C-alpha cells in the first residue's frame, strides 16, 4: 500500500511539475507573441505614417501613339507613325487646400514641361482658388483634357489663339458650391507659344520661362450651368482676352492693308478678342452633346525695325507689325453609342483676316513709301479662311484604353483666279511639281488619323 502511495505521489509530483513547466512555457510563449505583436503594431504605425505621406502624391498619365495619312501630295512622307503625347501628371496635396502639379511630356527627343503650378484653395468659403505657374489658359476647349478630346486635336481657331494651351501667369478662380457659376481671372505673360522673329530670322521668344516684354495680358472667363430637368443641362459663358505685345517695328499695318500707323519700338500692339460658348448635354439614347464657341477680335504679329548697312553687310528693310481682325468658331455634335463607343462630328471655321476675302487675296497689297526701309506686304495664304469637317469614332476597351479613328476634311477659302496663289511641292520620288498646289481650288489637306491611347 505504502509502495503504491509512494508511486502515486511521485506520479502526481511529476504531473504537477510538468504542468508547472508547461504553464511557464505557455507564459513565455504568450509574452513572446505579445512582444512580436507590439513590434508589428509599432512597425505598422510607422508604415501607415509613411503611406499617408505617399498617399498625398498622385500620379496619372496617358500615352497616345498614332498613324496618320496625309492626302496633300506635298506632305512627304504621306503616312507615318508618331507619338503624339506621352504625359505624366504628378499631383502633391501638401496640405488641405494646397496642391502642386507637375506635368512633363516625354516625346522622343524632346521632353517638355507642359504644366507646373501651385493652387491655394481658400479654406473658409471654399469658393476661391489662386493658381500660380504654368497652367491651361481659361477657355473651354483649351481646358478640355487632350486625353478626352473627341476630335483628337483642338479646333484651328483655338490652336491659333492659344498655341500650346498652357501659359505662365497667375489665376484667381471663383467657384462657389451653392451657385453653379465659375469665374476665372488670369494675368498672363501673354507670349507663350508665339514666334517673334528679328531681322535675322531668330525667334526672340525662344525662352519659354520668361516674358519677352513688360506687358501682361488679362484673360477672363465666366460660365454658368443651367439644369434642364431630366432632359440634361446647358452650360454657357463668355471669355475675353485683353493683351499686348511689345513693338519691335516702327509701323503697324492694319488688317485691310490700307493704313500704316507709326509706332515706337516698345509701344504696345494690342491683341484683344472676346468669345461666347455653350455646351448642351442631353440624356437621349445614351447621352449626346452639342458644343460650340465663337471668337472674334484683333490679333497681332510683331515685325522689326530696318537695319542699316554695316561694312559689307547689306541693309535689311523693316517689317511692319500686323494687326489682323479675325473670327472663328467650332460646333461639335457628340453621341455616345452604348457604353463603349462614341461618335463625334465637328465643324470648325477660322478666318484669320475678316477684312480680306478670298477674291482679294494677292490683289490687296500694301506698298511701302520707301521699300528700302519697309518691306511691301501682299495679302496671301495666311489671310485665307479654313473650314474643317471632322469625323471621329472612339472605342473604349475600358477606362484605360481608347482607340480612335478621325478623318478631317480640310477646305481652304479660294482665291479669285487660277495661278494667283500657288505653291510648289515635291513628290515622294523627289520630282518637283512647280505651282502644283493652286489655291483657286480646294487644296487637299485631308488627314486620316488612327490613334491608340493608354491612360492610367
Amino acid at each position, binding site marked *: 500500500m505504502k509502495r503504491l502511495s509512494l508511486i502515486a505521489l511521485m506520479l502526481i509530483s511529476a504531473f504537477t511539475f510538468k504542468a508547472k513547466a508547461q504553464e511557464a512555457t505557455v507564459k513565455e510563449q504568450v509574452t513572446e507573441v505579445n512582444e512580436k505583436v507590439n513590434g508589428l503594431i509599432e512597425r505598422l504605425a510607422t508604415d501607415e505614417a509613411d503611406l499617408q505621406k505617399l498617399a498625398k502624391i498622385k500620379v496619372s498619365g496617358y500615352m497616345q501613339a498614332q498613324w496618320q*495619312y496625309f492626302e496633300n501630295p506635298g506632305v512627304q512622307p504621306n503616312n507615318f507613325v508618331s507619338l503624339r503625347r506621352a504625359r505624366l501628371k504628378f499631383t502633391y496635396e501638401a496640405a488641405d487646400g494646397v496642391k502642386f502639379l507637375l506635368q512633363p511630356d516625354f516625346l522622343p527627343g524632346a521632353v517638355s514641361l507642359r504644366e507646373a503650378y501651385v493652387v491655394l484653395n481658400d479654406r473658409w468659403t471654399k469658393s476661391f482658388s489662386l493658381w500660380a505657374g504654368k497652367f491651361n489658359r481659361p477657355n473651354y476647349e483649351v481646358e478640355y*483634357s487632350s486625353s*478626352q478630346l473627341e476630335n483628337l486635336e483642338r479646333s484651328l481657331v483655338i490652336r491659333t489663339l492659344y498655341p500650346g494651351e498652357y501659359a505662365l501667369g497667375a489665376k484667381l478662380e471663383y467657384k462657389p458650391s451653392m451657385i453653379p457659376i465659375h469665374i476665372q481671372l488670369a494675368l498672363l505673360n501673354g507670349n507663350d507659344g508665339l514666334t517673334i522673329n528679328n531681322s535675322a530670322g531668330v525667334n526672340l521668344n525662344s525662352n519659354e520661362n520668361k516674358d519677352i516684354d513688360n506687358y501682361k495680358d488679362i484673360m477672363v472667363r465666366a460660365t454658368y450651368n443651367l439644369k434642364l430637368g*431630366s432632359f*440634361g443641362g446647358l452650360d454657357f459663358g463668355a471669355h475675353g482676352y485683353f493683351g499686348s505685345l511689345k513693338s519691335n517695328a516702327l509701323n503697324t499695318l492694319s488688317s485691310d492693308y490700307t493704313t500704316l500707323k507709326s509706332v515706337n519700338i516698345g509701344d504696345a500692339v494690342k491683341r484683344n478678342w472676346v468669345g461666347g460658348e455653350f455646351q448642351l*448635354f*442631353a440624356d437621349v439614347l445614351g447621352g449626346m452633346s452639342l458644343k460650340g464657341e465663337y471668337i472674334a477680335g484683333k490679333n497681332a504679329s510683331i515685325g522689326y525695325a530696318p537695319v542699316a548697312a554695316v561694312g559689307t553687310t547689306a541693309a535689311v528693310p523693316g517689317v511692319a507689325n500686323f494687326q489682323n481682325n479675325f473670327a472663328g468658331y467650332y460646333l461639335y455634335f457628340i453621341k455616345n453609342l452604348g457604353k463603349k463607343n462614341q461618335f463625334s462630328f465637328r465643324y470648325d471655321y477660322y478666318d484669320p483676316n475678316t477684312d480680306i476675302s478670298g477674291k482679294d487675296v494677292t490683289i490687296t497689297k500694301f506698298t511701302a513709301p520707301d521699300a528700302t526701309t519697309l518691306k511691301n506686304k501682299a495679302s496671301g495664304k495666311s489671310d485665307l479662311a479654313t473650314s474643317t469637317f471632322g469625323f471621329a469614332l472612339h472605342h473604349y476597351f475600358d477606362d484605360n484604353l481608347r482607340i480612335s479613328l478621325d478623318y478631317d476634311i480640310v477646305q481652304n477659302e479660294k482665291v479669285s483666279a487660277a495661278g494667283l496663289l500657288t505653291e510648289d511641292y515635291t513628290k515622294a520620288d523627289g520630282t518637283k511639281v512647280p505651282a502644283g498646289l493652286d489655291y483657286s481650288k480646294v487644296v487637299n489637306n485631308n488627314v486620316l488619323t488612327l490613334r491608340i491611347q493608354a491612360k492610367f
Partner: protein
Amino acid sequence: MKTLNKNKFAVIALLLGMIGLAFAPATDKIIVKGSDTLVILAQRWAEVYMKSHPETAIQVTGGGSGVGISALINGATDIANASRKMKPSEKDKLKERYNTLGVEVACAKDGITVYLHPSNKVKELTIKQLSDIYKGTIKNWKEVGGADAEIKLYGRENSSGTYVFFQENVVKGDYAPSCQTLPGTAAVVNAVKKDPAGIGYGGAAYAEGIEICKVKKDANSPGVLPTAETIKSNEYPITRYLYMYLKNKPTGAIKQYIDWILSPEGQKLVVEVGYFPVK
C-alpha cells in the same frame, strides 16, 4: 488613289463594325458599387429582387461613395451608391466621358448616428460640441459633462460619403489629425464598442450593441434620437438622403430594378435594414 480608296473602305468598315458593337444586346447583369452605408441595404435589395427575377443578376460591392462614383465615371458599374450628393467635379467628368449629367435617385433616408460606448456618462451632444470634438478643440470628455478621459475619435476614410457629409454638415472644418479613419461603418462601431472613451459616427443601420447619442441643434434645443419619426420630420439634426447614381436615364432591367426599389416592396426593406423610406 487606288490605295486611298482601299483605306477609305477599311475606315468605313471599321466605323460600321464599331457602331454594330455599340448596339449589341445588353445582358441583364447589373453591377452596383459604392457607399458602405448603403451596402447592407443594397445587398438585401439584390437578394430579394433576384429571387423574384431570376433572369437578372445583381452584383453589389461597397468601397465608399467616392469609389462608386469613380466606378460609374470609368464604366465599371451601372449604379453608384452614394451617401452624399455628386460633386461638381465628378459631374464634369461624367459630362466629358458620357455627355450626360447623370441621374440621381434618392432611395432611402438616413440619420447619421453618433455612437458612444455604453459606459459613457455623456448621453447627448450639440452640433457645436460634435464639431469641436471632431475638430480636436474639445479633447476631454469632462469638457462636455463626462468623465476625465481623453476623447478617442473614430471616423471614416475620405472616400466615404458619410465622411464628407459629416464634415460638411457637422464638423464644418478639418477633422482633427488624431481621428482614426476606419474602413467601413461596422469597423467604427466595433472600435467604439471596445473603447470606453471612443466616439464614432455612421449610418443608423449599424447601431447595434452600442449607445446612440442624442443630438441637439443647439444648447437650448432638446436632444433627439434618430428614429423613423424624427428623421422623417427632419427633427433629427443630421438627416440625409441616400442616393443611387446612374449615367443615363434607366432603361430595361435597370429601370425595372430601380422602380422596384422605390416601390412599397423595396421601401419595406429600407425599414427592415434600419433606414427610413424616402416617402
